[in-house]
Structures are given as C-alpha cells and as structure tokens.
C-alpha cells in the first residue's frame, strides 16, 4: 500500500538521464516496483521517493546532490532504514540517496585507536573487524547488526553500553560531508581540540538535514579485560526501577543497565533466552573493566538488588551464557510481533530518579486506553521505550495509539525530560519539539541550517515543527501505513 504523502513533483527524464550518467544506470532506480522497498523505515510513516540512487563514493554523492539541486528536487539520505522516527522516509518525494554500497572500512589506525569508515558500514561490522586488535566501537544500538554508522551519526545513536561509554557524539572525531551545493568538506579531524567551532558536534544528531556524511573518523576503545553480566529478577517494574536508582545512587556506573518487563519477557518465551517467565521485570546489568574491579562491582550490584527485593540474581558463567542473556535484550523489540500484529515504539527520557513514578504513569495511560504496553529500555540512562501493542485493523486503534503516545511523551516532558533520547525527532515528533523548546530556540536551530545552506534541500519536513509545505505529510502519513510498515 504505497501512498504518496503529497503530490510529488514530476521528475524530469533529463534529471534521471543525468543521474544515470553521473553514477551508472543500474544504480539509479525509478520504476515503481523498485522504489517500494525504500518507502518506509522502522516507523509508521511512509513516502515514496521518485528516484533512488546508490552511489559508490563521495564523488557520486556530490554529483547526485548537484543534479538534484539543479532540478530543485529534495534529497533524502538513507542508511539501513532501521530508523524509528521516519528520518529516512522521503516525506515529499525527491531523490533518495541510499548509502548502503559505501560500506568500506577504509583505515584502522591501531596505535591511535581510530577508524576511517564509509557511512554504509554496518555498526557491528566495525567492532568485528577491529576485534583482532583488541579494540571495539563502543556505541551499540540494539539494531547494530543492521543499522549503518552513517545513520548512527545522523541520529546520534545510543545503545545499552552508552551508559558508561557515551553515545555516538562522544566517539566521532571528524566527518567528510557533502553540502547542499555539492561541495565536499572535512569537519574536524584526527585529533580533538582543533581550533575553531565544533562542527562535527552539531552534524552528529542533525538527522540528515544539514549535509550528507560520506566518511566518518571514529574513536575505538580497548576491549575490557573482564566483563560480568548479571540478570536480576524483580516482582514488578517499580521494584526494578527503584533498584536502578539505587545502583546509580550507590556511586557505581555499570557498563549497561537494561530493563525488560513482564510483557516483553512473554514475547521472548519462544526464544529460550532464560528469563524467568513469572518475573515482573528483569534488569540486565553488566560491569566491565579490570577483573578485580568487576568482581567488586558485581558484588555491589548484587547487594543493592538483594536489598531492593530481587528474588533471584543469575550471572552469566561463560561467553555463550552471556550472549544468551543479551540475545533476549537485543531481540526484544522484534519479538513483540508475537504479542500483537503491530506495535509502536516510544523513546522518552526522564531524570533517573523519576523513573518509578513515570513508569507508573505510563502504565496508567496504557490501562486507560486499553492498550497493553511492553517495556524494554536503557534504564540506567532514564531512556524509556514503552511499546504500545495494538492491531491496526481494529477501527480507531491507530488514532488511539497516537493519542496515548502523545500523552506518554507529555509525561516525560513534565518530569523534566525529553521527547527523544536516541531515535530522533524525524517526522514523528516534530510537533512535540515546541513542548521543550521556545520559538527562539527553534529559530536558532534553523539558523544553523542556514549556515549549512541546507534550506529544505536535505530531508525536508524533518526534525522541525510542521511548516506550511509539510502540513499534508503528517496527516496523510498517519493513514498511509500498513502492517508491514511496523518494525
């Protein structure tokens, strides 16, 4: 069910011919049947580009951008399409630049612990490639087997281990980018503290609206000497969130601190990941570092969890066991499909001490709307992901889900938090931006867009409150999804 959001500009055949010349005819797609797979990302939004190009290198990206500019066509960069805010959806049509062919790891500097990569490299592939040097790339989104480093940069992606090691922005040194006029530029470089304004710092998290990233220079970390993985079982989400606050409050910052609730555990039963079926919630806790330090830390975690009512605490005894505990966490979101035909993933953040109260309020919203909610999230960071379960075929179900989602976002904001911790604003949350930012704040952000000369050339209608030309997209997109459009 491909529905165009807004009557798209007809793409001149001359533009297609130019793109074919600049790239190669087999890497320019424009037949409707070829475009379908590029219509959606991990969200409920949809929009069809008129043409998809698959560049091989920076020069081809720049050429495509210049041609699009000449024909006044918007450009949408796209990685693996795992995004959860509609960022890679061609909201108003145009040229979609899929970065998936640019997936070379160009250079690994073992001594200086950096890697130069193309944006289409899959997150986990980088860590795998450098493991033989005792190194890894720290940000590990749960989608790391699929998502690209370019998409990570655009969203400032996080992951379970970002609690201790920071999110994408803490690991980006420099970026090669293509600007809206086709100019290629390096921002930042191989060392920190270069004189001048921190341009990579603002491009990270800019959701493909400022420029297209064509190379990234990333920091690598040394693999920890020892890792201990614990699973603490609680009666309720409330008890588990209290334990989260206490662990953090005890002066310990674990490497990861993830929460998985009863509903999610139910979805995982078939996978045999070893989470007790009768648990109200489990915490997956990992500490890493020196062997002696991790045994000290693991003991501390055990103590706190026991004090706060953990019925059982398991610990992974070997790497395979550890993998198994993590497999549950990493497969959790996709497993939700077993519970309901559709689910809608939210991404709010609250101060950690507010987690217990906020989780209660979230569940109250679900109860009020009659929507089951499954929670699996980065508890240590206060970054919650309530997943609203529903069946879109039921009349009015989708509208209900969106209304409940909005209430939950409100709860996060009222608790002093944010409308997105890692998935981005995209199409989905652009109208919530004004809940946390004033007009002056948003205007300042638009000035940054002006500095990059980006206008509405890159990823129009994303990340900012709905503007006139985009008014249509939201409402028609809401009617436009189909069952397969959900993650």
């Amino acid at each position, binding site marked *: 069910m491909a529905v165009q959001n807004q009557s798209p500009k007809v793409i001149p055949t001359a533009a297609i011919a130019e793109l074919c010349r600049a790239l190669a005819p087999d890497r320019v797609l424009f037949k409707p049947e070829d475009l379908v797979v590029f219509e959606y990302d991990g969200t409920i939004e949809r929009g069809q580009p008129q043409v998809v190009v698959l560049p091989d290198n920076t020069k081809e990206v720049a050429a495509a951008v210049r041609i699009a500019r000449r024909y006044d066509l918007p450009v949408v960069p796209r990685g693996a399409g795992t995004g959860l805010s509609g960022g890679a959806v061609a909201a108003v049509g145009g040229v979609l630049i899929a970065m998936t062919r640019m997936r070379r790891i160009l250079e690994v500097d073992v001594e200086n612990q950096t890697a130069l990569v193309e944006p289409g490299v899959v997150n986990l592939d980088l860590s795998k490639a450098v493991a033989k040097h005792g190194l890894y790339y720290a940000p590990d989104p749960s989608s790391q087997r699929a998502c690209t480093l370019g998409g990570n940069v655009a969203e400032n992606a996080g992951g379970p281990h970002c609690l201790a090691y920071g999110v994408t922005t803490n690991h980006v040194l420099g970026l090669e980018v293509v600007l809206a006029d086709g100019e290629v*530029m390096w921002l930042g470089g191989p060392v920190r503290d270069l004189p001048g304004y921190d341009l990579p710092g603002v491009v990270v998290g800019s959701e493909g609206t400022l420029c297209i990233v064509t190379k990234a220079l990333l920091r690598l970390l040394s693999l920890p000497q020892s890792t201990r993985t614990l699973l603490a079982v609680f009666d309720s989400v409330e008890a588990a969130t209290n334990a989260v606050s206490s662990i953090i409050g005890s002066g310990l910052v674990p490497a990861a601190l993830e929460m998985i609730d009863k509903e999610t555990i139910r979805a995982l039963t078939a996978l045999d990941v070893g989470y007790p079926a009768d648990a109200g919630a489990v915490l997956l806790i990992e500490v890493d570092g020196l062997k002696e330090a991790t045994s000290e830390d693991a003991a501390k975690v055990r103590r706190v969890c026991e004090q706060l009512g953990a019925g059982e605490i398991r610990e992974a005894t070997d790497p395979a066991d550890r993998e198994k505990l993590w497999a549950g966490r990493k497969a959790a979101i996709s497993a939700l499909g077993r519970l309901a035909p559709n689910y809608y993933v939210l991404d709010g953040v609250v101060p950690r001490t507010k987690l217990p109260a906020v989780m209660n309020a979230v569940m109250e919203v679900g109860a009020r709307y009659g929507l089951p909610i499954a929670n699996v999230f980065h508890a240590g960071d206060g970054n919650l992901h309530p997943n609203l379960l529903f069946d879109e075929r039921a009349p009015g179900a989708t509208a209900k889900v969106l209304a409940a989602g909005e209430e939950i976002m409100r709860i996060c904001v009222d608790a002093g938090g944010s409308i*997105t911790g890692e998935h981005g604003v995209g199409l989905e949350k652009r109208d919530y931006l004004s809940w946390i930012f004033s007009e002056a704040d948003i205007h*300042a952000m638009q000035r940054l867009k002006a500095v990059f000369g980006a206008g509405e050339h890159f990823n129009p209608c994303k990340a900012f409150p709905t503007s006139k030309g985009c008014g249509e997209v939201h409402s028609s997109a809401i009617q436009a999804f189909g069952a397969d459009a959900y993650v």
Partner: protein
Amino acid sequence: MTPDLRQALRDALPSTTQTAKAEDYGIEGMTPPIAVKPASEEELIETLAACNAAQAAVVPWGSGSQMHFGMPLARYDVALDLTSLDGLLEYEPADLTVSVQVGMRLAGLEAILGENGQWLPLDPLVNESATIGGILATNASGPGRVVYGTARDFLIGIAVATPEGETIRAGGRVVKNVAGYDLGKLHIGALGTLGVITRASFKVAPLPELMLTIAAATPQPGALIVIAREAHRRGLAVNRLCLIWTQAASGWQLLVRMAGGASAVETSRRQLNELAVANGVSLAPVDGSVWSRLPAFQPGAEIVAKAAVMPTAISSILERLKALNSAIVAYPTAGIVYGSWQAGAVSSDDLKDLRRLCVQAGSGALVLEKAPAELRVAVDVWGQPRGDFSLMQGLKRQFDPEGILNPGRFVGGI
C-alpha cells in the same frame, strides 16, 4: 566608542544594572569605557541588546584569568562581568546531573558536588576563581581527560544569551537527548564569540573511593610513553596521567593517579609496577599536591603553546619542545602537549616551526594559549584556518551579525 554612544548606551542599560569600575577590567592596556555587572539574566540580556544596538564591542568576563587567550581584541567597549550570575539551579544527586549559572566558580561547584560524593570530572589546571563559563568558553581540560574526556563529553544542556536579546537553549537536563540540534557544542571553546553562555547542565560522576598518585622518573621519555600507552590499553584504573619535563629537574617524570575501589587500585598499582620494571624504571607514591604544580600552569609560564596531535606523534613533539628549552606537560594517550616558557625565551619562528611539525607529523594543530600580544600576532594564536572555515564564518554571521562579541579574538579574525 564616541562619548555620544557611551551616553546612549548608559541610557539604554537597565537602570538597576550595576556598573563596575572599568579600570578593573583592563586587558593588555585597553580599558573599556564601561563595565557592567548584571544581577540577573534579564539584565544581562537587556545589556547585550543595548550593546548590539550601539554596536559596542562586548567582552564577557568570568574570573578574568584568560583574557590574554586568543588574538588581541579588535575593539573593547564594554566589560560584561558575569560573576553575579552564579546560582545553583538544580541538583538531584541521584540523577547524577547538575545545572548552574555559569558565573559559578568550578571550585564552588566541586565543593557542592563533593559533599554528595560526586564531582564534575573536568580538572582543568586553572586557578581557584575560574568560572564555569570561562572554562567552557576556553574548553579548558586537565590530566583527567585521558579517561573522562573534555567539556563536550559532560555538557548536556546550555542556555546562551544572544546579542539580539534572546535566550536560546539547547539540550536539557537529562543525560541522553537528541531533540533539536546539539547547539551547545558550538559554544565550547568558542571563546564567547557566538553568544554569552548563561546556564549549563552537566553529567557528573561518583567520586572514586580511593585515589593514589605515583611517579616515575627517567632521563628519556620513551619508556614512560610505553608505560602510559600500555596502562591505557589495559584499561587500568587510572584517572589522571601526565608526563612532565622541566629544566630544573632535567629529566622526565610520569605522574599517574589511580582511582577506584581498593582492589582495582591495588591491581593497577601492581601492574604498573610490573610495567615499570619491564621498562627499566621504578615507581613510587608521591603526594597528590604534585598535580597543582604542573609547569605549564604556573604564573612563571608566560608563554604557553598547546599542541594537539595524534598520539603516535607525541615523541617528535616532545623532542622538539625539549630542544626549545621548554617546560613540558603532556597527556600522551590523548595527544595533548603543553610547552611553556618565560617571556622572550622562544621566538616566533621557533613556534611556527613547531606548529608545522604538529600539522604535518601530527595531523593536528598548535594553539598559542598564552603569550605577549606581539608574539600572539606574529605567530597567529590559532594558525591557518582549515577547509571548514567558511562554515565558521557563517556561524558568526548568523549568531552575532554585528560582530560585537569578543571581536577579532577567535580563529581567522572572527
């Protein structure tokens, strides 16, 4: 500034705004006609807007300790003292976050956090009176950066007063947040050229249970660099590390501060000892006060150059600095080296050569953080702008269109 303009500006300033003694705000022989010390953010904003309307050049002022940082000012009309804006806005220890007004001193903030067993692990070797705003604007860092990173790794939210009389905010008070562009990053190290930072929120960390400083000395730095790298690679429980060289000691010294729980510190100490023995040096505990005596940060250091290079280029930079009779403080695994001299002890040509080495061998840069004005001009504090300079100029035009904030001090004449 003409007398008319001065009067106009005086009239436009909020009536309650406290004016300060202008003589207290001299910078290298320039005394501003007006100095103001706003008592509230509203007053600050009105003052800025009035200055903007009058096109008066404004210098935001924290403790005033880094006013030599950057190129000499092109104009200087108003000193804007921010030290009255020093409130603690929000601090919930269990959230591990804190929000302050930036006139607060770092030392004051650390005292508050310390009472709760926490700290902001930003340990720039600045004097006691340095303010949060000044530290952000200069991107000051310290020997803890090898583990904790720099200001950009802690700042989670910011509020900035603009010349046009608005407050703009970015980020927030939660540790993870991707709503809106991360504009806070632009103000770190920007030397107050894009706006006046008024509030900042940070992630903070638990204070380590135990800390222990140890030192090793050798005539050559090679072995010490190997030890530093290996400690870093193994992930030893180290939270400060630096290498120093002084003429007086006529040798190299490695300082390491271990931090963490008892067994982590003990293991790290044992492993460091083994590493030291294997590399022919010996380690011994020293008093923690050594950290406040690092040479580049002493009053005698009248010229300070900071090299930022790839860690593998460290040795060549150290060698060159030694040949230039510099005192040296280096964070080898971060690729940061400070050379310092007394005034007159190093020539502009030597510094330019050193910069060439940093750029060519180290893929990095050299910033002349402190020096007499003539030397700063002769060497150019920042060096040649890079290929992304047009975007930097664009930022300045967008956020300070009249060019009233610290004119001329920043990169490429910004």
